[in-house]
Structures are given as C-alpha cells and as structure tokens.
C-alpha cells in the first residue's frame, strides 16, 4: 500500500486533473460546481502525496515522453516547488469553497472551467524544468487570469482586465525573446542543462535583462505595478484573491528559480541585487502609502499586495551573503502572504456582499453583524502586519535577522516602516468596522461557506507561524537555494 502511495504519479494528477476537471465543468455545466470542488479537493490531496513522495525520495524528476532533458521536457519538483504548490492548494481550497457560494448560476458556469484551467496552469508552472514550457504555462495562466478578472463586467473591471492583458502579454513576449536568446546561445531550454552550459556572455546579459524585465512586469514590482490595483481591485473578490495570492507569485517564482539556477552565478550579482532591493524597498513604501490613501477596501488590499511584493525582492541583496536564510525568509513571506491576502480579499468580498459597497468609511457595524468576516480580516491583517505569532511575523523575523546580521540597517528600517504603515492601513479599516453609522445601510445575507472559508484561510495564515521549522525543512528539500550560497 505504502509503495503504491509513494510511487503514485502525483505530478501527473496535479497537472492533468484540473485540466480534465475543467473540461468536465465546461461540458456539463449542471455539475460544474460539484466537479470543481471535487477537482480542487483531490488536487490538494495530491500535493500532500507529492510532499510525502519527495520528503522520502528527495527531488522528483520526470522526463515527459521518456525523452529526457535536452530534447524533451522534464518535470521537476523540489522543496521550493512544493511550497508554491502547497500555497496554491490551500488558497485554491479556500477560494473554491468561497466561490461555490459566491457565484450564482450563470457566472458559475463561466467561472469554474476557467478557474480549473488556471489551477492546472499554476501547477504545471511550478512543476516544469523547461523555460519554453514555462512560457506556455505563463500564457495559459495569464489568459485564464485575464478572463477571470473581467468576469464581473462593467467599465472598471473591463478596463482593469484590458490593462492586465496588455501587461501580461507584453511580459510574456519579452520573456519569450529572452528564452529565444538563451536557446540559441546554449542550445537547450532545460534549466539544469542551461545552468551547466551557460557562461557569462552578452547573450546571458541580454537574456537576463529581458526575462527579468518581463517577469518584473508580471510580478507588478514597483514601478511596474500600474496594472495591478485596477485589475485586482475591480475583479470579483474570489478572483482578486487568486490573482493577488497566486498569479503574481508564480512569476516571482520563475524569476527566483532562474536567478538561482542560471543567472545568479553568472551576472554581476551585487549590482543587480542592489537594484532589485531598491525597487523592493520603494515598492514597500510606495504601496503602503498608497494603500493608506485609498478609500475603497479592495483597492487598499490591492495596493497592499504591491507593498508585500517588495518584501520578496528585499531578499535579493540579502542573499548575496546569506543565501539560504534570506531565500527561506522570502518564501515564507510569500507563503503566508498568499494565505493572508486571499483571506483578506475574501473577507472584503463578504463585507462587499453584505453592505453592497466597499467604502472604508462606511463599513459600519461589520463587527456586530459580520463577526467572522471581521475576525478573518483582523487575523489576515495580523499576518500582513507581521505581528506575532503569525506566518508573516516569522517571515519578517527571519529576514530581519539576516539583515541585522549583515548590518543592513537601511533594509531593517524599511521593513519596520512597512510594518508600521501596514498596521496603520489595517487598523484604519478595523476601526471603521466597529463604528456605528447613524443610518444603517441595506444589507444582504452572506452564506456561511463564504464566511468560514475566509476565516479558515486567515487562521491558516496565523497558524503558519507555529510551523516554522517543519515548513523550512520541507522548503530545503533538494537544496533549491544551495547554488547561490556564497560562503560568508
């Protein structure tokens, strides 16, 4: 039994199940909701299976079609992929349960197939070791994300989706040009082989410029974040949750992976890292200040995403001297941010559904009448602020520790400022939820599944803080950060 479990092709399930599930949802719209939920559930189980598999056997590598690396495409899973897959599974479960209550029949038949294809694309993206295959998954993910972002209709959502589409297409094209240069420079598109064959040359530099720029645009790193707030702010709340929690992280994952395996050792590390760090710091401050200025809840959360992405890029300058620690911190932050941000968008969606609006100043009496949503928002906020004992706290703590050890006080100051600003914008919202408006607004009931999915995600984001050691040890399976480590 155990052998079967260990040998079971979890990777194939992770990629193919959502795709086939999406097809079934499309064919039989009557059972779309049920099929969707089941698919997501079993996909999440497969992540567990894969986790067990690579925990026991180490890194997983699979040659699709049996051809092997340069000719065929390899699938690859290590701790880093596993962490991203796990984040995806958690968020997918929460968002799916939420969506089952959120989307009414007409929208439901449109939502489920596209969402399952998006899930398949995400899983495929985290599992591939081939940069051209990454391009295809990026496009699949991007188009599905755009289709979901425009689902709500109306001027704002369509404008946001259009901006998003143009940005994501441009990003992929620029990335593709980088891939083309790499292929012709070194005759392979397999990441591992490229890492062996590549040497510092104009090809590498140009490819790095193109790939990094394209992925930065897709990750919405300041100052290329312009498309994110309108798209994430105007999409339906469960879609915003997916976009902020997962889709943005996916392109960061690619950037990180390629940096670790290919570019990091070849390019002038310090200069590039400094630029990344500067942009990250600017993103934290800028995104937080903008979030504080917003009057709409969802836009505020979207800007908060801009700020939180900044933290991930702060790891680059820190990693030049302390590879593993800095990257672990960044990935921990990414994981907890995925959970917390999804919970936050879902809670905001509940408030939106309840009051029919998301003006921060009019969120009256949410605490009394929508206590679970308020609790979810507060718990998720804890993680975003980095208050103990949440997952965000652990991530920030690990990163601060590295920064202090290296004497990078400017980074410490930026991080503390970012935390303070985050506290300010989150408590601004929380304060309003307690107030009592003179005339209560019309309110609409919120299904329990929507309330609980938001709350459970938020609780997961907080509980993540208690699991630092197991998560970090899982993350280091296959030593994904090993290559960039420079002995101090």
């Amino acid at each position: 039994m155990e052998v079967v479990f260990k040998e079971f092709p979890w990777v194939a399930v992770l990629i193919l199940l959502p795709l086939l599930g999406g097809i079934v949802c499309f064919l039989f719209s009557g059972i779309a909701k049920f099929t969707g939920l089941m698919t997501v559930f079993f996909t999440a189980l497969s992540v567990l299976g894969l986790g067990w598999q690579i925990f026991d056997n180490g890194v997983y590598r699979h040659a699709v079609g049996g051809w092997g690396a340069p000719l065929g495409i390899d699938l690859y899973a290590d701790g880093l992929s596993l962490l991203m897959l796990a984040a995806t599974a958690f968020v997918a479960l929460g968002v799916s349960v939420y969506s089952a209550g959120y989307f009414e029949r007409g929208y439901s038949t449109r939502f489920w197939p596209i969402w399952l294809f998006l899930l398949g694309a995400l899983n495929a993206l985290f599992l591939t070791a081939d940069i051209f295959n990454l391009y295809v998954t990026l496009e699949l993910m991007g188009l599905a994300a755009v289709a979901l972002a425009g689902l709500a209709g109306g001027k704002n959502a369509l404008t946001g989706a259009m901006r998003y589409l143009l940005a994501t297409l441009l990003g992929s094209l620029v990335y593709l040009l980088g891939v083309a240069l790499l292929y012709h420079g070194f005759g392979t598109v397999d990441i591992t082989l490229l890492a062996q064959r590549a040497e510092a040359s104009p090809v590498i530099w140009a490819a790095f410029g193109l790939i990094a720029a394209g992925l930065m645009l897709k990750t919405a790193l300041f100052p290329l974040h312009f498309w994110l707030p309108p798209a994430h702010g105007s999409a339906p709340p469960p879609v915003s949750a997916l976009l902020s929690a997962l889709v943005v992280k996916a392109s960061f994952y690619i950037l990180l992976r390629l940096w670790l395996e290919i570019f990091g050792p070849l390019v002038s590390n310090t200069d590039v890292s400094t630029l990344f760090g500067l942009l990250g710091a600017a993103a934290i401050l800028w995104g937080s200040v903008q979030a504080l200025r917003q009057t709409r809840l969802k836009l505020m959360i979207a800007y908060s995403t801009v700020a939180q992405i900044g933290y991930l890029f702060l790891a680059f300058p820190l990693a030049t001297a302390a590879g593993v620690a800095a990257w672990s911190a960044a990935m921990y932050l990414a994981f907890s941010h995925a959970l917390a941000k999804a919970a936050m968008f879902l809670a905001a969606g509940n408030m939106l559904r309840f009051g029919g609006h998301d003006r921060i100043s009019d969120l009256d009496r949410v605490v009394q009448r929508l206590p679970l949503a308020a609790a979810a928002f507060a718990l998720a906020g804890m993680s975003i602020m980095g208050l103990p004992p949440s997952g965000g706290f652990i991530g920030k703590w690990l990163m601060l520790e590295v920064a202090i050890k290296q004497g990078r006080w400017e980074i410490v100051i930026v991080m503390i400022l970012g935390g303070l600003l985050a506290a300010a914008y989150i408590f601004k919202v929380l304060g309003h939820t307690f107030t009592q408006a003179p005339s209560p607004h019309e309110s609409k009931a919120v299904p329990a599944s929507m309330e609980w999915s938001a709350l459970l995600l938020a609780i997961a984001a907080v509980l993540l803080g208690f699991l630092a050691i197991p998560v970090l040890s899982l993350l280091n399976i296959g030593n994904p950060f090993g290559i960039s480590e420079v002995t101090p």
Partner: protein
Amino acid sequence: METLTLLALSFDALLNLSLLYLAWILLNCEDLLKAIVLFVAFGLLMALAWVRLDAPDVALAEAAIGAGLTGALLLTALAKLRVIETNKGTTQQLKQDSENFQTLHYMTPLALLLVAIGLGYVVFSMPPISAGLSNDVATNMGNSGVSHSVTAVLLNFRGYDTLLEMFVLLVSLLGVWSFGSTTSQHETTPGPVLDTLTRRLVPVLILVAAYLLWVGAHAPGGAFQAGSVLAAAGVLLLLMGWRPGGYLSTLPFRLILVAGPGLFAITAALLYLLKGQLLAFPVEYAGIIIFALETTATLSIAVILAALFLSEPPHSDKEHI
C-alpha cells in the same frame, strides 16, 4: 551559381527591408483599416520569409493563422468597433498615448534604439555554427512514429507543450465567451461574389485540410495548419451569414470543442498509468496515436478558431444566466 547567390541575397534584402518598412507603415498609418490590410500583407511576406528560412511548416501556419485568421479577426473587430463608435457618436483618430508626460517623447525612441542596438549586438555575438537540438532530433526520429521532424517535435518530443497549448486556445475561447455577447448583431447580406466563392471554396478547403492533416506525418503540414484551413472554411460560412445558433450550446458541439485537448490529456494520463511515463507513446503505436490525436486536434482547433471569429457566446448561455 554566383548569380544565383547574388539573386537570392538581393531577394532576401528586399524581403527584409519591405518587412520592416511594412511594419513601420502599418503601425503608424492614420487609417486603421489600412493598417489591418497592411498587417495581412505583412503576414504573407512573413510566410515568404519562413519559406526562405527553410521553415515551410511555419510558413503554412503563418499564412493560415498569422495572416489569414488574425486578419479576419481584426477586420471583424474593426467593423464592430465602427458600429459601436457610430452608435455612441465617438470618432477615432491617431492619438498618441503620452500627452501628459512630454519628456518621454525623447526618451522612448532613445531607449528603444539602445534596445535594438543591444539585441543586434547579441545576435551577432552568437556563435556562427550551433547545431541546437538538430542532432538529438535526428537520432530519435526513428522512435517518434512519424517521419516529419517538425511533427515529431510538436506531437512527440515536446508534445507536452502542445497539450498545454491546446488548453491555451480553449481558455481564450472560454474567455471570449465569458465576456458575454458583443454589441448588436451587425448582419450584412453577402454579395454574389462572396456567395459563389464560398460555394466553391468550402469543399476545397475541407479537402485541403484533410490533405494537410494526412501529409503532416511525413511532410510539412499537420494539425494546426489543417485546423486553421478548416477554420477558414467555417469563417467563410460565417461570413455568408450562416449562424450556428443553438448548435453551439449542444453537447456534441461542446464535445468537439474539447475533443482535442481532452483526448490529449486523457492519453497522457493513460500512458502514465500504463507505462509509468507521461506522454510516452509506445514506438510501434506512436504513429497511430499521433494521427488520432492530430485528427481530433484538427477538428477542435478548427471549431475553436471559427468560434473565436464568431466571438458570440452560445445562446443558451444567456438562458442560464
């Protein structure tokens, strides 16, 4: 011999310069209709360039999809846009995007020039001879089940890419449908020329598609090319004013839509269960499996592309909502 080389070289130069020139004109010309027509011409020239570069498969795909179908999509979109603009009383003109950031006008071309120079330098810095993966392809051709190398790469060596790519097509169709129906129906009665043309062309196109599909195993051609030719037949029918109406929402039609990607995914899963390897075609059956996959893919691609051209969600979707 030397004159031939010279001739070829001058042809290449002419083709290249006209490509660049066309691109510049089509992107900067005042009239959008003209721009689109130029884009189709540009696509055809690109197809020529592919032929010159010994890439006949790409040439076929470019002519059918890049120039033909994209052009048709663009033209219909423009026509619909004109209707919207007339209804709303807005006019379009050549407008620059950067009114309120004037300094960029000087910065942008400069930065782009730097990009072009840099990329050009990189292209020249590539080693003059690089086999790429051609040796690997040649070695493994015997096990691929087909004798045409591009098909072998597309459907076998890198079949996983193609599997995902079919889903890209499907997602874009779902996306187009999810935005709901676009504006008022803008029906025109086809002229007699189009009418006759369609009557003659549709059967021919179907035959061409079948041929392309069949020939794909050992010569240029294959699912994408055949699918797009078949789609062209559908587009002609749609231009004629034929509307599928209720068909689009029926289960058989939906089945055709998903047959290509679906069968591909199911095959992948089955092969994993049987052989323990994703998409590992057994050598003796590889040819047949690939042909089956290609046939369903052709149907699906054709229907998806034609549906993209129609860009109307199926009617019964409205009843759902």
